[in-house]
């Protein structure tokens, strides 16, 4: 590795600030460059730590003990987190549902058997009755998302948001689709700041300046409705606002091209240029998907330009478009040891919007449509 020489940064260096290759470990992890000191003595004597506080005003330092004062803890103290966000355990006990609510096939065994059985099949065309069921479940999904969004404020934990979503599903006689899907432990995904998607609701309190994506899916009358959106917690900085607006614009532009005969591969070709023009990048590992009686099914919908996606949109099929947009040019992500949480690889923030769409004879119907973004 070759890097320019950096001189000891101590303001009171007794050695005349010589060049050094010894770096502050906290700065190294946080990605703050240039924090070099000629010796441990010099480092100790400096008021350097204030730099960390400036960089991470709302988070404890990465090397904090894993147990916090309120008995919550970081279950993966040795994991190399890419940014300041940490899991905050214990997770609340698994939430229960009344018996009368219809369950999808994975609710008990965690394995979506019907999805596997249908792998490789072309997208399913729904009958008018089935389309009505999709309309209903998607409208309810939007209601639940709006309820969850209304609860977003500094101080609420993501677990409390999970409870709101879970209870709102029950009130609507619907199953919260994420619950136990491939062992996912909660009823909603809450993805904060650098979390790209699949954040697990835990005991972390939302903080002024955070952004949070809430991803809600309901299962009712045999069909899933899938919707998500990103919200500010209190006041957020301009960069985060721009990120959220960009993510919304990416989705809106993509929806505009949807109609029978449109190519699935052109959806990503529409999204990525919008992201790039705004200094952002489109995540590649996670894609949009067909949604109907199956939570995730054909077609697979890449959100990036150079893709070889197969197929064209057909009237009567339902799919989601849900671009995950990262600040900066890095679309890579890392996964926490919980096997779900995906964060950006560089710790920068990520935002996302999702709608469930029905392709109609003449164009597209946004089944989960809500109010326009206000930011």
């Amino acid at each position: 590795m070759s890097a320019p020489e950096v001189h000891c940064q101590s303001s009171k260096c007794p050695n005349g600030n010589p060049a050094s290759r010894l770096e502050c470990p906290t700065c190294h992890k946080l990605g703050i460059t240039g924090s070099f000191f000629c010796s441990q003595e010099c480092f100790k004597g400096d008021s350097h730590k204030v730099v960390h506080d400036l960089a991470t005003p709302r988070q404890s330092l990465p090397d904090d003990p894993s147990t916090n004062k309120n008995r919550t803890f970081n279950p993966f103290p040795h994991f190399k987190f890419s940014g300041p966000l940490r899991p905050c355990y214990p997770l609340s006990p698994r939430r229960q549902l009344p018996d009368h609510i219809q369950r999808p096939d994975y609710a008990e065994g965690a394995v979506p058997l019907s999805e596997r059985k249908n792998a490789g099949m072309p997208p399913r065309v729904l009958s008018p009755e089935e389309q009505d069921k999709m309309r209903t479940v998607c409208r309810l999904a939007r209601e639940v998302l709006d309820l969850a969004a209304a609860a977003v404020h500094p101080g609420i934990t993501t677990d409390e948001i999970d409870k709101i979503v879970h209870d709102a599903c029950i009130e609507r006689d619907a199953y919260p689709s994420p619950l136990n899907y491939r062992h996912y432990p909660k009823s909603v995904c809450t993805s904060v700041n650098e979390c790209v998607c699949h954040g697990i609701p835990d005991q972390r309190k939302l903080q002024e300046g955070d952004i949070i994506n809430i991803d809600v899916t309901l299962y009712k009358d045999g069909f899933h409705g899938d919707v998500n959106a990103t919200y500010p917690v209190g006041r957020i900085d301009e960069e985060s606002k721009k990120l959220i607006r960009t993510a919304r614009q990416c989705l809106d532009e993509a929806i505009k091209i949807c109609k029978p005969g449109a190519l699935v591969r052109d959806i990503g070709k529409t999204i990525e240029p919008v992201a790039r023009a705004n200094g952002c990048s489109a995540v590649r590992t996670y894609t949009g998907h067909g949604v109907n009686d199956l939570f995730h099914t054909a077609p697979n919908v890449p959100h990036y330009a150079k893709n070889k996606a197969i197929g064209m949109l057909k009237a009567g099929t339902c799919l989601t478009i849900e671009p995950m947009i990262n600040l900066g040019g890095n679309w890579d992500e890392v996964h926490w040891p919980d096997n779900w949480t995906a964060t950006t690889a560089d710790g920068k923030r990520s935002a996302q919007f999702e709608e469930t769409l029905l392709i109609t004879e003449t164009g597209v119907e946004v089944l989960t449509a809500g109010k326009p973004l206000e930011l």
Partner: protein
Amino acid sequence: MQDDEIPTLIDVDNLETLPPGQPDPGAKPVPLTIITGFLGAGKSTLLKRILTERHGYRIAVIMNEFGDSTDIESKTIGVESGDVRSEEFLELPNGCLCCSIKDTGVAAIEELMKRKGAFDYILLETTGLADPGPIASIFWQNEEYGKGLGWDIILDGVVCLVDAVNGLHQMMADSASNADSVGESLRQLAAADIVLLNKIDAAPLKLVEETEAMIHRVNPALAVHRTMRAEIDLAKVIGIGAYASGPPPITVHVHDEHCAHSEVGEVGSTHYAVRGISSLQVRCPPLSSAKLDALDIWIRTLLWDARLPLPYDAGEGLEILRCKGLLETVDGRRLVLQGVRSMYELEEVPRKGGEGRVGDEGKLVFIGKGLGEAVRESLEAVLR
């Protein structure tokens, strides 16, 4: 550690890896070659040579037991929990690594790359897989996820070992079997970019020639190297870029001599059929953008819907296993067609200075089932 406790400085010169999330600008994508072959054709001899000889490449040989392919695709949706990974490593004196990975597919190989780093090539051995096509398409699609991030794997090509003594017999037996189920050897050839025709020292020259002719009849777009004891310059097997954006290695000329002199717009084509698998090879003139669009529609109707655009009808059982092509437009642009099964890409590539005359080299090759006269006529109608 308390907030006011001072951590120990770290020596940045002794760090093991780059900090996470920093793309390594010097990192090159690592080509992955799939090795397949007829039973007893010498696959293990080839692998043994690669793992023991001093050839100067750092190669990771992965013995694959992919099992259920639905698990391999799970990366696109969610991360499978309860990660059961069983791996065995064998690091060899010549710098190569031999390992077996069970069931975690693309993600496991990327993980291996991240941990073991810096291989020049990866060879994936596909024991027990009748048809390398699905695995090839998974790796080809997976290229899209990692591109430019320093740990990406690119599909380099599919190599198939054929036994010069028994290979012809195996192909004949497979093509003679029921037309609905195409035999293993023919599917391997259809997916292959390179064939090593091995054990030529043990077979009469005439048989070697007949075998090679038969191989080309199944797949006119592949290159054949004759070998003894699988001895081959590795540069002919790895790093061939069969799926790269450059012109594909269409090594076989269109056999119809007249078509070289045919007028623009007229299409020369040859068409071979081994029962079960056949190929269609068509020369094509420089295309207007309207014709290019029409060709794209034709290709996707064929690959995605397994039929021909109306009014043509190819009947039942149309299935494309592989396609390749090089196209030119009337305004001098150059495009490469690559396809495996339903997945394809038609991508513009830069024309290097002075490289070929316009109109020289447009060619399309399709390999699969049910490529009858109707397919040829329908394609010619699009190009004409």
